[in-house]
């Protein structure tokens, strides 16, 4: 092969939409990377402990992830707009107890779930209004509502507790049942996830969430109703936290005034590990969901491998830092690749 073949010419020919391909590939890679880590972890665990992936084992993995996936999906929308909602743990706790009390009094389960969602919407609206009107950093505002909602919860609930025995059998069965290994709860979470992802990609208002997270001032100048969109993102996030509260009740059957305490940090970790950038404007809900799946699975993997669960938190932290480091490196790589592309067509 000393003679140049005709095939060599098109090497410099850049495909028309190589920019997208590059970026798409990076993001898909980002999500793929989490998936790979997840699969490797599961495989290694299964090799170490053949009891791990029984029917019940798979079901548990999915069940454990469900609630975090839901809340992380809502949180992603808020983070994409360059905000954050720290009150989701409190909202989850109080809506779970509200749904439980309602069911205890003989209420209809469907109405109980709707009640929890409505409650979440109420707190979401409150957060959204404070953040969009108050011009105060979301971190501070939602830290405030975190304590307020938790406070209301503690006063209202006191030392009371709801247990599975207080709940209708159908509701508890729904919490643990499903189609073969796929629990009902996971199906709900997947439906919400897919719908949200579709909305974000294909609807104008969904793209506007990315736009205003990417450059808030430009969003304002482009005529995007910034406050309305932020309000909507918080409301959606609250609604999902409420729904997650109802599902939590169905799954565990056990709720008290401490339910969901500290959950917001797990949610934010899942979102960031999933590649939703904390400074807004990029990331996907699928990534966040994978992040959630990865985080909750570690909880099951370690005991199965005989490792003490005291390691869980430390490992979560390492994953978080790794994810941020990877994002940073990828961002730099992409930036220099894009610059080179510029140079080519001057």
């Amino acid at each position, binding site marked *: 092969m000393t003679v140049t073949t005709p095939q060599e010419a098109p090497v410099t020919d850049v495909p028309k939409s190589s920019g997208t391909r590059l970026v798409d590939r990076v993001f898909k890679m980002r999500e793929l990377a989490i998936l790979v880590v997840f699969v490797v972890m599961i495989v290694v665990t299964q090799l170490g402990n053949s009891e791990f992936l029984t029917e019940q084992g798979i079901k548990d993995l999915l069940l454990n992830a469900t609630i975090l996936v839901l809340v992380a999906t809502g949180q992603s929308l808020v983070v994409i707009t360059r905000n954050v909602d720290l009150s989701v743990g409190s909202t989850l706790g109080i809506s779970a107890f509200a749904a439980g009390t309602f069911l205890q009094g003989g209420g209809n389960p469907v109405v109980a779930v709707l009640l929890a969602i409505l409650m979440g919407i109420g707190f979401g609206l409150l957060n959204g209004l404070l953040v969009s009107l108050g011009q105060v950093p979301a971190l501070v505002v939602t830290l405030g509502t975190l304590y307020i909602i938790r406070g209301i919860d503690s006063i209202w609930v006191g030392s009371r507790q709801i247990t599975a025995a207080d709940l209708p059998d159908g509701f508890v069965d729904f919490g643990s049942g499903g189609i073969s290994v796929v629990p009902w709860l996971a199906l709900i979470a997947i439906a919400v996830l897919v719908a949200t992802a579709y909305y974000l990609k294909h609807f104008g208002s969904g793209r*506007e969430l990315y736009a205003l997270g990417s*450059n808030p001032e430009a969003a304002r100048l482009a005529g995007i109703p910034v406050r309305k969109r932020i309000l909507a993102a918080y409301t959606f996030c609250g609604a999902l936290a409420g729904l997650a509260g109802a599902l939590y009740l169905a799954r565990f059957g056990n709720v008290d005034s401490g339910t969901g305490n500290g959950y917001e940090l797990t949610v934010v970790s899942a979102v960031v590990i999933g590649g939703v950038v904390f400074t807004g*404007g990029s990331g996907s809900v699928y990534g966040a969901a994978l992040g959630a799946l990865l985080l909750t699975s570690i909880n099951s993997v370690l005991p199965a491998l005989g490792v003490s669960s005291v390691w869980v938190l430390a490992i979560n932290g390492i994953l978080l830092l790794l994810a941020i480091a990877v994002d940073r490196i990828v961002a730099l790589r992409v*930036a220099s690749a894009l610059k080179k592309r*510029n140079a080519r*067509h001057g």
Partner: protein
Amino acid sequence: MTHPSTTGPAPVLALKDISKSFGAVRALRDVSLELFPGEVHALAGENGAGKSTLIKTLAGVYRPDAGKVLLDGEPVVFHGPGDARDAGIAVIYQEPTLFPDLSIAENIFMGRQPRRALGRIDHKATHSATLALMQRLGVELDPDRPARGLSIADQQIVEIAKALSFDARVLIMDEPTAALTGSEVARLFGVVRTLREQGAAVLFISHRLEEIFQICRRVTTLRDGAWIASEPLDGMTEDDLVRRMVGRDLDELYPKQDVTPGEVALSVRRLTREGVFTDVSFEVRRGEIVGLAGLVGAGRTEVARAVFGIDRWDAGEVSVGGKALTNGAPSTAMASGLALVPEDRRAQGLVMDMSIERNIGLTGLRTTVKAGLMDRGAERSRSLDWAVKLQVKYARIADAVSTLSGGNQQKVVLAKWLATGPKVLIVDEPTRGIDVGTKAEVHRLLSELAADGVAVLMISSDLPEILGMADRVLVMHEGRLTAEIPRSEATEETVMAAATGRAAA
């Protein structure tokens, strides 16, 4: 009023007696403006004259306190930028307003994407519409690449494509050429002419007066928020226009006083920083203004940084008033009477969110201290003193520096360093991006300082400024000092020859 009595088409967009205030500052007072279809109209005025406020009023960002906005002769109220856009008004702001994470196509069509059934975005149509726009503009940009990393010129192209995409009837361009090269400007003007021929009204703002004459037919001048004139550019000269903007003649622009240089204040001997500049030697005497000319990247700023101690030098020495400076120690440089006004005032010269008072006070943190604590009273009086001396235009001394116009920000940087009572002042591009009026003030100030015995080293890429202000001109080329030219022999030709390496010192 000097509006032409129109027998032709009615103005597509007009402002009538618009006023707008921000706190105590009256940004616009009874300003009127008429934009006719098929004309390119210039808006002239110094920084702080109210041009930006006027644009933002047209764009629906601000609502006027008084007066009317007329669209096709009918009064309208824009409740936000969206309303103005729907009325066919496109604005290209000075700083591009893109979404870095989104694709070029999304940037162009944000909020107005082509739709499919159920209100879903038609991504394919968005893509092909963007391709069509790019072809119309004669550029090759991939519609799907993210806006992040685009050059300023390409960002500007995206902004223009945005304006084209909704067939704007009125296009407002705020300093669109500031960051463009000659060929890019030509391309932009081609687009503007096409738009004009298609009947759009264009409002064009630029500090480059020659561009105004090149492309505009009429000009409206603002001064201190007030309307001065709207008139045809035919028969006007640049000097006429500057007089309208500044309110006085231009011969004041380079008010250089003659001085007899005193003893050597700054002496730089064989200064070298590996790979950056080599063997640079010069002196600046008391009362002298020495210009440091050269092309961008010749190493001028780097020499200044090394002299002041921000970067270390590898060989050579620097002394102020006969005392050698320590390598890489800005604090000793300051203590021996050296001051450096950096090139990039926003990033290096100022803390943008801090007040005027505290910015000026920054250099005095060591002197305005009582028993280890800041003496806020002393800081305030010192700052007020300098703000008044330099005629900084502000509402309150406690306002953030970011609220000031560029020229006034530059004055704050100067005040901050003059407050240290320097013996040697190094100014790097002291008048870049500031208006003619403030420029003249800065020049007068430098001249007065020199007359008071301060040694001034002025780095500038503005050749008329170098020739107008410097007693001696040093020229750098690729990291070496290539010429030292006395004022009497300094011309554009001699300086440029040395700057491009065509003549040896």
